């Protein structure tokens, strides 16, 4: 499965990519990394990934607006929101836009692996 990683932090993007070396996630291949919503839409259209990890607070276009756009392009896309915004209202807002899961920062590698597995099994 193809994965697009969207986050304005270089460290978070590489951390998510590194987690994919876990044997249970060998079926996931990173096809692009974007640092804001605008870049994400362009890379998404180019690769049409089945999976996306999405930050919320980003420059140019935030993760809520970006999630809505990506779902319009590919309604069956699995979007996992990974954000430090840990209030229920924000999680609900992204789920309403079409995201399939929400993971709060800070997260451990184990929690991220579990979140990916849950996302693809659903």
């Amino acid at each position, binding site marked *: 499965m193809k994965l697009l990683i969207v986050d304005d932090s270089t460290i978070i993007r590489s*951390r998510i990519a590194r987690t994919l070396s876990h044997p249970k996630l060998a079926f996931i291949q990173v096809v692009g990394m974007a640092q804001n919503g605008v870049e994400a839409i362009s890379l998404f259209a180019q690769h049409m990934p089945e999976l996306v990890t999405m930050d919320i607070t980003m420059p140019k276009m935030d993760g809520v607006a970006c999630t809505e756009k990506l779902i319009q392009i590919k309604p069956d896309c699995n979007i996992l929101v990974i954000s430090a915004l840990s209030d229920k209202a924000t999680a609900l807002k992204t789920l309403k836009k079409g995201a399939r899961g929400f993971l709060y920062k800070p997260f451990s590698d184990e929690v991220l692996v579990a979140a990916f597995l849950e996302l693809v099994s659903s």
Partner: protein
Amino acid sequence: MSDIDEKDIHSFVDAVSVYFRQITGEKAEIRSAYLVEGGVAATTFDLTGYISFSGSFSGRVYFSAPRGMVRHLLLMMKEFNHAEEQLLDAVGEVANTIAGNARKHFGSDMEISVPVTVATSDGWLDTVVSPRSYVIMIKWKQYKASVVVDIQHA
């Protein structure tokens, strides 16, 4: 005087505790939380990341740490690129995580910005924070860092 209370400050203390526990598997010692007034300084370290608030609150929260601590945190995340821009990205991400987690207490009407990061020299925080700011001192391993909460109701 600040118009935020002890519970408000505690939400930031909790966010700092959760961050270190989750990322390092260890507890950070929260050494003190004091108000910057009457000549008490906010301690500035090598690198500072901050988040600005808007909506129902205005102001900023700062995370300031020495380079050694940030490098050590990156190692804990298995990140071996320790270029200056990575270190700055890391302090920005810590500030972002602390602010984002604390927002659970303040509500979603409190908007938070993307992080801004600065390589800082001694005393920098004292030039930018207001006298109503709270300073939370952190000790993790042999390192000290500070979180400065400078927010008020809009």
